[in-house]
């Protein structure tokens, strides 16, 4: 089953890179949903010989929260036409991909020097999760729209989650659920706040989103 974990890890990194290289918000959300969907199978691959109820629960909860509900919330958030429009990243898409490739290389290079104590199912888990995190950060930094920053944050969380799976026994399942739920509520509250911001801007007729403190939303 190591093969399947390896495949999932590589796909997760690849999809994180695709999020970075997409400039349509709808596309980004869809890619994120696929990434979460793949991620939700990883708990099942971990103990392939004896899948326990705990693995199935974690897998199901991940799938429902991350692959269905979070994208649904994000789609709800961009239901206004104006939000669907193309976004202009701070640096071009080609450059983003190039930087992303460099980040992946960095992640692999860093994880060479990190020796995991004990045996690990797949040696790809650590570098891939680091790479996903870095790509998520990159998405957050280079995009100006608030919704894309949320997406970047979620990609970071997916990277962390991939890593968390490799040390399954240290975290009791309740805490894992707490973490998942927290992240879900975070996205929910972010979407609500964004919604309020949009309403406020439509009401006051603001366009650029630059306030008197000089900050952009």
């Amino acid at each position, binding site marked *: 089953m190591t093969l399947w974990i390896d495949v999932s890890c590589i796909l997760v990194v690849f999809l994180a890179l695709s999020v970075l290289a997409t400039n349509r918000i709808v596309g980004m959300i869809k890619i994120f949903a696929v990434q979460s969907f793949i991620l939700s199978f990883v708990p099942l691959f971990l103990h392939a010989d004896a899948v326990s109820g705990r693995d199935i629960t974690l897998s199901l909860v991940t799938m429902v929260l991350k692959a269905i509900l979070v994208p649904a919330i994000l789609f709800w958030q961009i239901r206004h036409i104006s939000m669907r429009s193309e976004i202009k990243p701070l640096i071009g898409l080609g450059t983003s991909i190039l930087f992303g490739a460099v980040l992946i290389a960095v992640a692999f290079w860093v994880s060479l020097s990190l020796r995991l104590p004990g045996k690990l199912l797949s040696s790809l888990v650590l570098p891939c999760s680091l790479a996903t995190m870095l790509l998520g950060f990159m998405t957050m930094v280079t995009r100006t729209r608030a919704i894309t920053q949320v997406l970047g944050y979620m990609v*970071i969380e997916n990277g962390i989650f991939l*890593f968390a799976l490799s040390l399954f*026994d240290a*975290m009791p399942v309740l*805490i894992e659920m707490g*973490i998942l739920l927290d992240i879900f509520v*975070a996205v929910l*509250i972010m979407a609500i706040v964004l919604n309020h911001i949009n309403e406020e801007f439509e009401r006051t007729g603001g366009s650029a989103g630059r306030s008197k403190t000089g900050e952009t939303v």
Partner: protein
Amino acid sequence: MLSLLILIPLLGALAMLLPVRAMFRVWFLCAVSFTYALIVASFWRQLPAAEWNGYLALDPLGLILLSVNGLLFLPVAVFMIGYFQHERRNNRIFTACLLFLMSMMTLVSASYHMGLLWVAIETTTLFSAPLISFHHNRGTLEATWRYLLVCSVGIALALMGTFFLAIAARDVHTLLLPAILNGASSLSVNWLKLSVIFLFVGYGCKMGLAPMHSWKPEAYGQATGMVVVLMAGGLTQCSFLALMRVSQICYKTGLSGFYASILLVTGVLSLVVPAVLLLGEKSIKRSFAYSSIEHMGILVLGLGLGGIGIFGALFHMINNSLAKVVMFLTAGSVAQKYGASHASLVRGVIHTYPVTGVFLLVSLFAGTGMFPFATFHSELLIINAAIISKQYVLSGLAILCLAVIFIGIAKVVLEFAYGQPTDPVLAKKENLFMNITIALAAMALLCLGVWMPAPLHRVLHDAVTLIGA
């Protein structure tokens, strides 16, 4: 008892969602806060037993934070009685979030599992966000957004740090604090170092330490005074508890020196940055926000210096929360009277509202750590610790920064208090509830400044031995 203390505010929060009158909610909040404070006070006689298989346990460190929570929520609840006499906005979500926050802050103080601690701290972030945007306008919403994003990303790093800790403690098989401390010799040092860095950056972000402070002036500048009291006095110190837990682990594994160097550098930076940024500041809430960064820096500095510095830092936790009550409730009451907190709109408060004007001066002295107030003593203890450990440059720099910060805050506050009076816009009268709250908090700070009760000394001492050094 501990789970009861978590459940009471949680059930209260659900009750708040029922359709009742606004003032009823406020009185209910007062009742819950009062019960909460009573239960916490009973813990000073005897610490409650551990619950949930050791996941919840209260040690002196947690007790200090829990008492700080009690000390914050009670005055805020009483202050709200006055505040909502002039405020027509629906407070359903506001009060509910406040009680959720209370429940989660209790969970932070009592959690003995590093994963649970993370969950609790992240939840406090989420429930404090709607509080910041209580007044729906552009400024508050932008501030909320920034707070939510910066803190969420920071906390995500802390989650990564928690997982690294789990790897370091692979042989222990759990993240329960006593188990980690007992099995300290089996921890993998390299992974622990990595974990410490991530945990520090993550929780430091939530605490608003210097390089990660960008959300603080925005959020504190925009939110209502009462909310800022809870954030500056309570939430930031919840993250400080997490840093102290890391300190405990580092002490047991012999990484104290490594951790201390991180703490000292960040601590000094958190003194220098507000000193520089304060000088051009015109808004009272924003300048108090910079003062909050400074106080966090002092806490971290004390923790890094060790010995008497830790004692000072723990004492400062209590003093800081009381000082924040005085400072931000005064700022909030001024903001409610004038509808603004910028120096161009608010001047000569002492002529129009003598009591509030005096409170402004009190908050200047309490907040910057001037003599009779207890903040002076705790800051002195920490600088003392720096001198004892022969960190002369550091102590000199700290004193210089404190002096500059005093000048910066004094400039704003004095202009507020004594400038050419401007007309208040909204409320016309002083409010009794608001003023009594602020006066009591200032009195408490004054009393702690001249006399430290024996039980407090004992608990602080026990807490210092827990952190070690």
